[in-house]
Structures are given as structure tokens and as C-alpha cells.
């Protein structure tokens, strides 16, 4: 008998499985569960984009593309970044098309980090950064963000965590799971701390199109930040294209060159059909994005108002499609709250601590669901809270 534990990579064995996974496994064994758990749009990909994918297949575009992606797509991406965020990149050397934002995150961390380097990760945040940094041998240093700061990272917090070993700051705004955004004045404060250091920034802007009120500003557009920032973005959230697996990274050539090296050996190129579809997305789908944003915005306002009404205090998130209410009034841990809610009323939400220790006391609720679905879930959560022993 092979003892696989002796054979497998120690680093991989040490990675904890995602806390969300465990919870969904529990939910999937029950009947009649309604979920507010998924992290992807409920909209279908706009038809013009699907059609472009279908046409590319009809025309037989079924080969690999260049490693860094179709030239036309890279040009559309850089044109988009300039038009939306006033950041300039050379399509030939400063942009790389990847398999979702996820791959861009992976290869960016791998291209930058040496064993022993410190990687700053604001928490609560998307679950992938820390395990990937771990695999490179980095030391992950969490920066806990707080509800009273609307889950923004403050310049003081950042300053305190920077050492001479700090290599990279993960900068995930608009944020999953908190919905936090960094406005221009906050970005200036962060930039002030970083200018003059050698700390690089991985700015994960996958939710950039989903901000409510003010438009998203990229940290790469702040004075002195372009040269130290790798922007990660993609098509999944903005264009409802999660299943197409298409994202990109943009940044200074020396970093992108090394990322490209990892990409070409590990991946070869992003899916060709998806790349053709994405060209169409960038060219013609601004109106569709706007319509989806408006729909999310109405749901957001409703869910924030309803959650506060039934006694789960929650700040009004300015981005993404999640709300992150506090469940501390119930006296339960996040985990206990979610399990009890699931068992009593069959509603699945995600415990906040799945996104880092500082998420304890909160739950993540996604509003990428129809209004009727959201209202049914709220009704059940309200009943759950009413029936709790006082």
C-alpha cells in the first residue's frame, strides 16, 4: 500500500480546504435549500458575446492563440483600460490574457515572490490569495480590515505591516466578500505609504464594473503607482462570463515578461473561443453592463434595507454583489449561525470567517439572485431570527 501522505507535497497537504466548500457540501445534502451563496452573476452572458463565440467556432478558429493572447483582444483590453481608468499599457508587452482572473493572480504571485518574502493580504477577502502565496513559500501577513472603516484598508494599518521583507500587497477592491471600495482619497493615502518602497501591488479589480454611485478608480492611475502595480481584471463578473474562464493582467513589462513565461509553460494560452467572444464584449457591450449594474444596485438597496429591518446590521456596500452583515447580535459565531440557519430554514449563506479570521461575526450574502428569490430568503432569515431563544 502506498502511503500517499508520505508522497504528496507537504506544502499542498498543508493547504486548508476552502471553508466555503465544507459548508456547501452540507447544504447539498439537504432538500429545498435556497442559496444566497454563489459568487457569480445570475445573468446569462449577453447574446452578442455568445454569438461571437459561436461564430468563431463556425469559422473554425479552433487553434491555440499566441501565448499572451489574440493581438486584437490585447488591443481592445488596453483601449478599454485607457477609456475606463485612464491607465495606459502597451498591448504588445504590458498585457497578458489569462484563464480567468484566477490564473493572473496565480502567475503574478509566482513571478514576484521568493521563499521568505512577506505578502500582505487584507482580510476578509477572496479565498485564493493566501494559499497561492503559501505555495511560493511566502509568509502571508493578514491585514484585518474593520466594519467601522467600511472594510477599507487604512494607511496606518498598512504602514504597521510593512517590513524590509514585504514583497507584495494584495489589493482586492471592490472587495469580495465585504463589498468595500477604495475611493480616490483612500487610494492617495495608500499610495503615499507605498511610494518610495519596493512593495509591489497586485490590484485585483475583477469587480471594477460593479460599483454603485461613483465609478471605480484603479490604484495604477494614482501618481507613482503604475510602475509598482499589476492590475488583474477579467470578463467573469462584468460581462457575466464566468464559465468562459477569461481574464487578464496588465502592468510593467519586466513583470509581465516573467508572468508570460510561467503562463506559457503552465497554460499555453487562454481558450481561443472565449478570446474571440471577449473582443465582442469590449467592443459592444457597455449598455448591457450598465443594465446589469442597475439591476444589482436595486437588489443591493433592497437587501441592505431588509437586513437592517430584521435586525442584522449591515453597512451599505459600494461594490461587487455581496452584503456582509454582522450577526453579532445573535451571540453566535458565523459558523454556528450559518449552520443553524441552514438547518432551521434551509437558507445557505457563507460564514464570514471563511474569508479570514477578521470575518468572524459576519456572513456573506450574495445578491446575484432574482428579487423573488432574495425576498423568500429574507422571509426565512427573519423567521429564523424571530424564533431564536431570547
Amino acid at each position, binding site marked *: 500500500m502506498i502511503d500517499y501522505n508520505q508522497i504528496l507535497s507537504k506544502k499542498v497537504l498543508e493547504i486548508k480546504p*476552502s471553508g*466555503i*466548500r465544507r459548508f*456547501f457540501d452540507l*447544504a*447539498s445534502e439537504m432538500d429545498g435549500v435556497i*442559496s444566497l*451563496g*454563489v*459568487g*457569480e452573476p*445570475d445573468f446569462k452572458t449577453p447574446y452578442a458575446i455568445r454569438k461571437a463565440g459561436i461564430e468563431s467556432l463556425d469559422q473554425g478558429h479552433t487553434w491555440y492563440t499566441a501565448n499572451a493572447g489574440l493581438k486584437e483582444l490585447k488591443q481592445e483590453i488596453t483601449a478599454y483600460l485607457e477609456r475606463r481608468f485612464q491607465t495606459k499599457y502597451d498591448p504588445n508587452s504590458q498585457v497578458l490574457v489569462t484563464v480567468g482572473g484566477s490564473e493572473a493572480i496565480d502567475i503574478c504571485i509566482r513571478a514576484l515572490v521568493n521563499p521568505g518574502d512577506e505578502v500582505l493580504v487584507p482580510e476578509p477577502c*477572496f*479565498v*485564493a490569495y493566501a494559499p497561492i502565496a503559501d505555495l511560493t513559500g511566502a509568509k502571508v501577513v493578514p491585514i484585518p480590515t474593520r466594519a467601522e472603516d467600511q472594510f477599507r484598508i487604512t494607511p496606518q494599518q498598512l504602514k504597521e505591516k510593512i517590513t524590509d521583507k514585504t514583497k507584495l500587497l494584495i489589493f482586492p477592491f471592490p472587495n*469580495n466578500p465585504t463589498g468595500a471600495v477604495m475611493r480616490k482619497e483612500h487610494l492617495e493615502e495608500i499610495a503615499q505609504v507605498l511610494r518610495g518602497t519596493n512593495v509591489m501591488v497586485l490590484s485585483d479589480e475583477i469587480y471594477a464594473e460593479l460599483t454603485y454611485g461613483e465609478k471605480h478608480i484603479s490604484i495604477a492611475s494614482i501618481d507613482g503607482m503604475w510602475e509598482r502595480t499589476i492590475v488583474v481584471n477579467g470578463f467573469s463578473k462584468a460581462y457575466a462570463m464566468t464559465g468562459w474562464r477569461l481574464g487578464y493582467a496588465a502592468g510593467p513589462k519586466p513583470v509581465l515578461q516573467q508572468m508570460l513565461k510561467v503562463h506559457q509553460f503552465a497554460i499555453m494560452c487562454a481558450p481561443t473561443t472565449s478570446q474571440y467572444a471577449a473582443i465582442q464584449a469590449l467592443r459592444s457591450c457597455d449598455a448591457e453592463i450598465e443594465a446589469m449594474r*442597475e439591476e444589482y444596485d*436595486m*437588489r443591493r*438597496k*433592497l437587501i*441592505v*434595507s*431588509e437586513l437592517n429591518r430584521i435586525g442584522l446590521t449591515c453597512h451599505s456596500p459600494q461594490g461587487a454583489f455581496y452584503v456582509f452583515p454582522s450577526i453579532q447580535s445573535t451571540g453566535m459565531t458565523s459558523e454556528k449561525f450559518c449552520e443553524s440557519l441552514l438547518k432551521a430554514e434551509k437558507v*445557505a449563506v457563507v460564514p464570514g470567517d471563511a474569508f479570514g479570521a477578521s470575518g468572524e461575526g459576519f456572513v456573506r450574502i450574495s445578491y446575484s*439572485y432574482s*428579487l*423573488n428569490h432574495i*425576498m423568500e430568503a429574507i422571509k426565512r432569515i427573519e423567521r429564523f431570527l424571530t424564533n431564536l431563544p431570547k
Partner: protein
Amino acid sequence: MDKLLKILESNARLDNKKIAAMLGETEEAVQAAIEAYEAQGVICGYKTIIDWDKTDRHYVIARIELKVQPKRDMGFEEIANRIAQLEEVESVFLMSGGYDLALTVSGKTFKDVAMFVAHRLAPLESIQSTATHFVLRKYKERGLILSDESRQDEREDSTL
């Protein structure tokens, strides 16, 4: 407040408080806007989309195409309004193309509808011809897909 109309069009049963939250308005402002739309006739009424096939009600509908001789000075107005008065008639549209008026007519049985067409509609002065098409099955009505499968959420919970 065109967003308000869109919200009501997709779900007229939302209470004003929820609509107000969605629009970032006060409940009173929403109430006032709805009343104004009603007064102007922009909002004509509120109805429910029902799949009668799932109930024990006997209910058939037909689409009827009418060719009409328009009247001098009145055009199609007079006949269209007259047909609209008939309670079996659910909708009346003036059409471009091969015929003039399109009706939706309902009844308990196919025979009911056929009799209605033969005895009430066809004899009306100025109607030149009728063509009756019975509806066999409804898949989508007013933007709403009626099949149960369409309500399934295909998305799988993943680690995000």
C-alpha cells in the same frame, strides 16, 4: 421615474416600502408617483399571470385575425372599440401586414370560441373575413417563462 414602471411591470406585488428601498426614494414619493401614473393612465391596471393548465379551470384561447372594411372618417376605430366591448375578447390590436385586427378570445371549450366567432364576430358589419387559431400550449407570457425547469438555478456553488 421610469425605473419604477419597470419594477412594477416585472412584479406589481412588491410593496411600496420595498420599491422605495430599491430606488433610494421615500415611500411617500413612490406612492405619489404611482398615483400620478394611474391618474395619467400610464398605469392601466394590475393583473396576474396564471398558468390555467395547472388548475381545473376549463380555459381555451384563440388568436383571431380579422380583415375589416375601414369606415369613412372613422378608420378602424369604431369596429375595434366595438369588438373590445365583448367580454370574451381579451385583447384587440390593430396590425400592419396581411390582416387588420388581431384578437385574443377565450372560452371554456374550443366549441365555445368557435361559436363566438361564428355568431358574434363574423356577422358584425364591415368584417370581411376571420381566421381562428387555437392556442395549444403556452411557453412564455409577458416575459415570463412558464415551465418549471426555467426556474432551476444551474449555477453550482463553487469555492468563491
